[in-house]
């Protein structure tokens, strides 16, 4: 197994799939000559040429919609949005075209795009550049939504996404690009729709993904010891469709659930997971499901405030204690 940066794992996934399938191309702002705003596409212009690695003007609705159209026309675009904050401008193309084209044409067309780019709070980027807007996509039937927490999952899920015949929305936490992790050698695919137990434990289930899961992986041993509670970490990896089987199996074991997510809280993904757990696992629960989210405000710039707004150790540990009545 090789140690890879998250960004390089993504680069490998795209490059391998572009070798494999000539219909796959990469398009977005700064992806070609600049090697990507976050250097995810480093070297890809040199390797695949201008036809398949394409810089766009800053016109998020236009270039995303054109790429969506190209998928209807038989190609398999990987569309990089610099961040999902900007992709708000592209939503019409995703919600009203990509997600609906297969159904609206009764199967005559399909829309195999991968929309991918940075999400989350990258560090003192303030109100407009720190959002986690996953729920704008998970809400929409016709879309598949992925959010990896490790380089291995990033590579394996992105390869699966590129091969999938449906529109896939792929979230990369801005603060993960430089994270390192082991990635299996050779062909490595992670199936869409399958979650992963990142740490086995018996007392309390923590459900999280993306950067929050990475931080939990780093803390779980220490916290388990400190709290005297054996923490199980469940990473859904796919946000839509949810792997409820895996989640409920963990709840069955622990009876206690904390959901940690970075976005605004009101009807974000955690609310959906919590709803389903209480509906399908009502008798398995020994305590109400708790969640820890960002405080529900536009992100302040000052680092002194940002760290209070994001989910942090104090708030997560308090939630663990609460569900364990400790």
């Amino acid at each position, binding site marked *: 197994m090789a140690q890879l940066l998250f960004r390089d794992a993504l680069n490998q996934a795209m490059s391998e799939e572009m070798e494999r399938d000539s219909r796959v191309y990469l398009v977005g702002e700064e992806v070609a000559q600049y090697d990507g705003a976050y250097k995810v596409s480093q070297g890809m212009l040199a390797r695949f040429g201008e036809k398949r690695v394409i810089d766009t003007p800053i016109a998020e609705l236009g270039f995303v919609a054109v790429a969506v159209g190209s998928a209807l026309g*038989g190609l398999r675009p990987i569309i990089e949005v610099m961040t999902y904050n900007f992709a708000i401008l592209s939503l*019409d193309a995703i919600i009203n075209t990509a997600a609906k084209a297969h159904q609206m044409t009764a199967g005559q*067309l399909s829309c195999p795009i991968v929309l991918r780019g940075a999400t989350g709070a990258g560090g003192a980027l303030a109100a407009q550049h720190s959002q986690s807007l996953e729920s704008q996509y998970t809400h929409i039937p016709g879309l598949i939504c992925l959010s990896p927490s490790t380089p291995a999952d990033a590579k394996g899920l992105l390869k699966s996404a590129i091969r999938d015949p449906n529109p896939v929305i792929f979230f990369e936490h801005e603060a993960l690009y430089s994270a390192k992790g082991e990635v299996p050698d050779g062909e490595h695919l992670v199936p869409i729709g399958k979650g992963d137990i990142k740490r086995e434990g018996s007392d309390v289930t923590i459900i999280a993904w993306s950067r929050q899961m990475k931080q939990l992986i780093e803390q779980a041993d220490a916290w388990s010891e400190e709290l005297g509670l054996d923490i199980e970490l469940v990473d859904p990896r796919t946000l839509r469709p949810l792997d409820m089987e895996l989640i409920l199996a963990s709840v069955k074991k622990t009876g206690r659930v904390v959901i940690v997510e970075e976005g605004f809280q009101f009807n974000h993904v955690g609310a959906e997971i919590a709803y389903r757990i209480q509906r399908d696992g009502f008798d398995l629960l020994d305590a109400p499901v708790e969640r820890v989210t960002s405080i529900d405000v536009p992100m302040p710039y000052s680092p002194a405030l940002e760290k209070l707004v994001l989910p942090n150790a104090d708030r997560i540990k308090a939630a663990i204690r609460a569900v364990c009545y400790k």
Partner: protein
Amino acid sequence: MKQTSQLGAHAHNFPRGRAAELPKETLLKMYRDMVEQRRFEEATGRAYGLGKIMGFCHLYIGQEAISVGAAAALRPSDVMMSAYRIHAQAMARGVPPQAIMDELFGKATGCVQGLGGSMHIFDIAKGFWGGWGLVGQQVPTAAGVAFAQKYQSTSNITMVFFGDGAVHQGAIHETFNLASVWGLPIVFVVENNQYGMGTALSRVSSLEPLHEMADAYKIRHYEFNGMDLLESYDAFADAVDYAREHSRPVYLEAHCSRFRGHSMSDPGKYRTKDQLEEEKAHDPIPGFAAFLVDCGVTTHEALEAIDETAKAGMKLILERAEAAPWPDPELISKYVLVSP
């Protein structure tokens, strides 16, 4: 507002006269197509009035010279894409009228099995790619199809229609720039019928004439009289050839007029009766009929017979649509995702 009396008097900078080379059979077929579209839309209007067709429903009556001129200029392997005023455009492209009417009735035998209705007609095999409901949405989407055509080294092109109401949508401007920079083989067509719903273009637009905005994007552009079938064919034939040959966008402005309200629920109070009558004086069908007779291509009687056949055909189409089966409930979830 552009006076309809100007409909016949535009500057042209495209080669004229190609329509004159069309064989007699083609001219007659084009006439028949216009008449069938007209009769189809009239039948649609009646069925809507009877509650057989639901939802939003927009008739194309008055604009038939555009759909027919455009379709005649395209190859079967080219792509045509449009908005929601599309029954006639789909017919022009060869989608069977029965499949369209069944779709309007919401039946399983419709061209999209009852999932789409009036605004969402698709028949990819025939090169008719819908059928989109958000004003402007189809424009970048179509440019994407043109992108794929170029990427795959086909010699096909894409033609996309939108209305005068759509020209202020930012997406269209973003697309013009991309199409120009990337050299996409696409023909943009604005059907300027002077109204977006009840709003006269001039009340909300500083773009006049519309097609000149393409200058900024270094895109070839011109306007034509969309009520004149021969002029329409000439304009499209030139644009299609240019887009195919140069892999470059073209922007056409078709001046036209819709004789009905925006949709079935629009009483159309924003136009006076006189104004509407004036517009109807430019009806493309009698105009072309007169031309065919004048040139000795055919006789009045033969044209009458075409009309009678079309009317009878529509009666049958309505009966069959009525008798067609409803979709199976399983359809609801069948095409949400592509099955693996």
